[in-house]
Structure formats: C-alpha cells, structure tokens
C-alpha cells in the first residue's frame, strides 16, 4: 500500500503540494489527473525518494520513504518500476542494455537469465527482437514501450507511470493502455498513473483522484468521477476551459508550470 500523508512541497516560493493525501490500495490502479504543473509528477517522485517532502510523508508498505537509509531506499526502489514521460532511456546503450540495467544490480542473476528476462519483457510490450537497436532508432511510442519493459523487467510490486501516453497518437496511446492493463494482469502490480488523457484514465483506472491546488480535489471510482458534480472535476474531465478560469485558486500558469517541472525534474 502507498500512502501520501499530508504532503507539502515547494520549489522556492512556488507551493506545489499543499496537504496532498491519498491512499493507494494493494492491487489497484490509481489514476491521478489534474492540470499541467499542479504537482502530479512531483507527488509520485516522492514515492521513490527522488524528492524529499517539506512536510508530511509518503509511506510504502509501512516504511516512511524520506526516513529510509540509503541501502533501505535502494531496496525499496528495487520493488518499484517507474515509467517516465519521455521514456528516459539511456541513449548510449542498446535496448538490451537498457532493459537489463536494473537486473544487473542483482547478484543472483547470471547473464543467461538476464538475457531471458529482457527477451520476455520485450515480448510483453510487443517489441521482440529489438535488443540490439539503439533508442535513437525507435519511434516515440516504441521508446515508451521499452521504458515500460525496463520497468517491468525487475518484476516490481508497484508501477508508477508518469504521463505514459502524452504526445502519442490515439492508436499508440491505446496500445500503451492495453500494455498497462496486461502488465497489471501478468504481474499483479499496484499502479499509480499520472495522465491528462481521460479516455486512458477510464480504461485503466480502478479509482481516479484529481489533484488541484496542491491537494486532492476528489477521489472516486471511474463512475463516481464520470458523474462528479464538482464543477472543477467536471470541467477537467469534459475539457471545459471555463472551469479552470472559474476556480477558487488558479493553478500555475504555463510559465510557472514549466518552472515547477524543471525543478522537479
């Protein structure tokens, strides 16, 4: 189980998270939606200790992430797969070496077993036989699938997806959605998915949480979010610009959002 408990995070004067609380139960897929720059990526980076909270805490399987020793944090990270928005593949390595990278930390795996696991992970994302290619030779959608293969190769208990379908065409987005569902079924993982894509959110999510003004505005099942009476939530899921304009507190401007993304990245 992953618990965000009253999380606060600021970058300089910009308060990004202001009391963000959310519980993700074992086995479920939680989708977090919200406007750009409202701190969705910032929130999930706390789960793997890429960021430390200013106040509050993230608890994973009963362990407070920010209180872990270096070795304990490494052990926690080996249970979590993270899929980045732009895949973040190591561009100087082949696809095989990218997917094998996390596996090479483990002392109990020989090269033969690593090769088998890499091949299996690439098959799961429908990219068999691409081991010797370089990331620069792949399309955006294929790179995201390799990023997914790299994350699932370590056989994680948790999967964190940071905008996995952003920038992809609808068909490729649907492929990624299908792969996320397949990953959940094959590995039984608990997932958190950050997305702006409501069609994707409805397809893969068990529950959906909307992040607004640094905290959760509403959390509920897919049907509850679809039928939400909260004007802010309705406006977001229906893509109505007036909802954003009429909000009590405006989310970050585009320039501010970029600044936050930069600081978080």
């Amino acid at each position: 189980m992953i618990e965000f408990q009253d999380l606060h995070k600021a970058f300089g004067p910009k308060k990004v998270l202001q009391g963000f609380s959310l519980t993700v139960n074992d086995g479920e897929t939680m989708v977090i939606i919200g406007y750009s720059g409202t701190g969705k990526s910032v929130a999930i980076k706390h789960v793997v200790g890429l960021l430390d909270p200013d106040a509050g805490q993230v608890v994973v399987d009963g362990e407070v992430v920010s209180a872990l020793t270096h070795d304990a944090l490494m052990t926690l990270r080996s249970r979590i797969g993270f899929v980045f928005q732009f895949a973040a593949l190591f561009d100087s390595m082949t696809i095989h070496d990218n997917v094998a990278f996390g596996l090479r930390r483990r002392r109990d795996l020989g090269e033969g077993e690593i090769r088998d696991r890499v091949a299996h992970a690439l098959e799961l994302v429908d990219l068999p036989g691409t081991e010797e290619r370089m990331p620069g030779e792949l399309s955006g959608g294929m790179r995201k699938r390799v990023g997914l293969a790299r994350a699932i190769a370590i056989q994680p208990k948790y999967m964190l997806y940071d905008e996995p379908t952003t920038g992809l065409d609808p068909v490729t987005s649907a492929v990624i959605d299908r792969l996320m569902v397949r990953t959940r079924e094959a590995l039984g993982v608990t997932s958190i998915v950050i997305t702006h894509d409501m069609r994707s959110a409805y397809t893969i999510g068990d529950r959906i949480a909307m992040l607004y003004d640094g905290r959760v505005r509403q959390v509920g099942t897919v049907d509850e979010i679809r039928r939400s009476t909260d004007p802010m939530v309705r406006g977001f899921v229906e893509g109505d610009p007036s909802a954003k304009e009429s909000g009590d507190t405006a989310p970050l401007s585009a320039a501010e959002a970029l600044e936050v993304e930069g600081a978080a990245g």
Partner: protein
Amino acid sequence: MLSFIGRRSNLALAGIGRFGLFLSDTARAVPDARTWGRVLAVQMRRIGVDSLPISLFIAAFTGIVLALLATYTFTGAVPLYLVGTLVGKTLMMELGPVLTALALTGRVGATMAAELGTMRVTEQVDAMETLAYSPHAYLVVPRVLAGTLMFPVIGGFAMAMGLLTGWLAAVTLLPLSSAEFLRGLRMFYQPFDWQYGLIKLSSFGLFITLIGCYLGLATRGGAEGVGIATTRSVVYSAAMILVLDAYWAIVLLRPA
C-alpha cells in the same frame, strides 16, 4: 550595494555547500566497486586513449617552440647546451602538465558536463536512481578515478613527445648537436622533475572531472542549462588548473 554583496555571498556559500554535498555523496559511493568497476575501463579509454592525439599534437609543437625560444634568448650570453635544460625542465614541470590539462578541460571536462547534463535534463539520471543505482557510483566515481589515473599517463606521453620534438628542433634547426642537447637535459635533471609534473597532472585530472561531473549533475532547464554547464566547466576547470599550478609550486618548490 550591500544587499547585492550579501546576495552574491549567499549564492556562493550555497554553491560551496552543494559542492560539499556532492563530494560527500561521491566519497560514499567509492566502496560500491561492483557498480563503478564495470565502467571504469571504458572511462579510462575515453579519457586516456581518446585524448592522446590532441595532447601529443600540442606537446609536439610546444617542444619545437621551446627549443627555438630558448636559443633566441640565450644567444651570445648563455651556453647553447642549456637549451636542453630549459626544454626538459619546462616541459616536465610546467608546460607539459598545464597545456595538457588546459587542452583536456574541453576534451574531458566539457564533455562530461554536457553528457551528464543531458542525462539530467532528459531524466536519465532519475531513471538510474529509480533502478536502484547511485548516479555517483555509476557516473561520477569511474570518471573521477579515470581522470585522476589517466591524466598523468597522457601527460607523461606529452612530456616525452615535447622532449623528442625539442631535441629534433635543436639538432635540425639550431646549431646544436645531439650530445650538447642531452648534456643540457641531464645537467640539472632530477627525478623529482617528472614526479612533480605527474603529481600536478593527477590533481588536474581529479578536479577537472569533479567539476565536469558536478556541473553536469546540477544542470537544470534543458538545452540552455546544458550549454551553461558546459561553458562553466571549461571556465572553472581552467581557473582551477592555474590555482592548483600555483598551489603545487608554493608547496613543493618553495626553498626550505
């Protein structure tokens, strides 16, 4: 004015603090030999073997110029065989190490800042961390070790090349025989001469790689940030080379 000085001081202190944290994280990653051990050889080849041609090129012309400059200076006043002395001492103790290091600030330091900076802004460093790797163990330690070990090797070859071309210039372009050049070379020679040069080179390698890695990992803001980190790495490394050059002269050459 006072507030400006205060702000600049705060920024400088914060920078020193961040560099201190970087050094502490790097030192903590040194025992993780299983991680850095598998990439050390690659870095040694990239820093050492791949940097050799430019270093030898610079040293070759430095040797020629030194021999001619010494002859021009000495003519009529000082015995010409001292050309060998000047070429030897200067190449081993000063110009060999300093020119090699200055050339490699671009070849090595800037490359590291650009490479690690690009990895930072494209989230490759974050990806490494989520896969339970320490970026300091995988990226920083092998580069710093390779720089510290390989700079003396490259510099040693550069010194030898400079001496060779200095000798060639002396016997082909100047009224100086081989025996006279070698007599001058041996006359004031001490093993400390090249040892001093290699110590300096090792310290240059250490700091150039530390600066390149630090600025690379601290990069923010996309392509512009990478450009800034790369430029800064050259400027800071060049300044550090001159500071270290003076430091070693004060520590090791000052008469007792």
